[in-house]
């Protein structure tokens, strides 16, 4: 089972766990609607698009309302700390949450007690918490953008807003240097997918691939397009691809969906997500070797 956990920007949205389905422009979990917009909603939607295409089981999602005060974050983490051993997901994705180091530390301890290996993916606030607490190496995949890569490279930073100036540079040309620093200080997951003008896939400190085509610069402005990459990586790993393969296919798929949508800075992320099936149909077999015919998987 794949489990996706993160907050949603709706005050008083109760802690809810269940399977998400797409209905119109919204996600619905246990009868409650979540907008398919920047954040956990975009990530879940992208993962759903991929597992739906691959005819896999839809992810379980664990969500709670939080508009920045941490209430939903604490509910999600406390639930997982208590229950992750029983849930024992194959893949667990932690997403938008208030970065609280102590909660992340307790959750990682609980995960260690799971009866089988949990493939751990973190992005957004959960990645910030994992790094700040010195727990990055407990994770299999991080999906930082170029700015967040500078945060991972800075051993003293506890949030991307407090990164040493000499490390902060939006130019992804510096990514290899930042990647090296992050691994040196043990502040990187085993695999990094660094999102930027050029996407870098880094396995154990080695840059194993870069993706820069198609070039759709406007995607950087579209809120949620980093979240969709994380959702795709999770789905492809869950489908059985190796993490580095999943990262490469996710990066290519996201760019191609942006191209298909003719993205501008005013594009909404749901327009990008709406293109994934067309992208998979045209390219997934060629990129991943996962090929479908009308009768099913080949």
């Amino acid at each position, binding site marked *: 089972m794949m489990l996706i956990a993160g*907050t949603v920007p709706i005050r008083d949205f109760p802690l809810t766990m269940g399977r998400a389905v797409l209905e119109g422009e919204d996600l619905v979990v246990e009868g409650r609607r979540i907008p398919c*917009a920047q954040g956990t909603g975009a990530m879940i939607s992208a993962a759903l698009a991929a597992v739906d295409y691959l005819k896999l089981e839809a992810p379980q999602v664990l969500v709670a309302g939080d508009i920045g005060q941490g209430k939903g974050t604490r509910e999600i983490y406390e639930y997982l700390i208590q229950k992750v051993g029983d849930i024992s997901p194959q893949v667990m994705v932690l997403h938008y949450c*208030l970065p609280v180091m102590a909660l992340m530390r307790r959750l990682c301890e609980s995960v260690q007690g799971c009866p089988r290996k949990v493939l751990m993916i973190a992005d957004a606030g959960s990645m910030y918490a994992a790094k700040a607490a010195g727990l990055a190496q407990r994770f299999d995949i991080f999906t930082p953008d170029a700015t967040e890569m500078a945060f991972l490279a800075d051993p003293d930073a506890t949030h991307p807003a407090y990164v040493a100036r000499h490390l*902060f540079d*939006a130019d992804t040309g510096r990514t290899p240097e930042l990647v090296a620093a992050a691994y040196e200080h043990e502040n990187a997951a085993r695999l990094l997918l660094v999102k930027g003008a050029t996407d870098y896939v880094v396995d154990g400190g080695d840059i194993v691939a870069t993706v820069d085509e198609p070039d759709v610069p406007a995607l950087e402005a579209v809120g949620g397009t980093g979240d969709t990459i994380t959702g795709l990586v999770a789905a492809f790993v869950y489908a059985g691809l190796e993490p580095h393969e999943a990262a490469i296919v996710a990066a290519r798929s996201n760019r191609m969906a942006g191209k298909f949508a003719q993205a501008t800075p005013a594009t909404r992320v749901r327009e990008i997500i709406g293109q994934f099936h067309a992208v998979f149909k045209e390219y997934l077999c060629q990129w991943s070797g996962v090929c479908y015919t009308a009768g099913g998987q080949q």
Partner: protein
Amino acid sequence: MAFLRRKKPSFEGGGLVLFEDVQDAMTAEKVLKEADYAVKLVAPPPELRKGCDLALEVNLVEQPGIERALKEKDAAYVGVAPLRVGTSQLLEIVKATDFGGQVMVKAGNMKLSFDKESGAIVNVSGGGCPDIPYLHSELVDKKLSEAPRPRDIGFTLCALMLDRALEECLVLWQGGGQR
């Protein structure tokens, strides 16, 4: 026989609120606890000492919400600083990218894009704190001059950086002769 004591959940905040005197620190502790923030009275390291030798450890990520809560209750404090010595100051770097019809302004890890003709906010991207998707929904489609300020309705450092991006967008927009 050994007694087993349940360990209290540890608190790791990463930030310090600094004060002129002990009374201010005690007052601030009460204010922030009432506002449901996790805080702990600690001694600041000498290099961060700006007034008294009592400080409040807080979650640095929550800096904007904490400062707003203190100001609302007129609780005096000197400033908020990262706990780790050597940690740099809040990022001040702001960059703008012109896409033709829209401009994207990046402040730290946050990006805000607006339409050059109408001044409407068309997108918010970046960040990872839970107030950012909320701010996205509150800001997008509003005019720059009429949108709520992230520093007023957000709670985290991501919101603070987004506010800086909005401030720069306003300068660019109004500098272009628009109101």
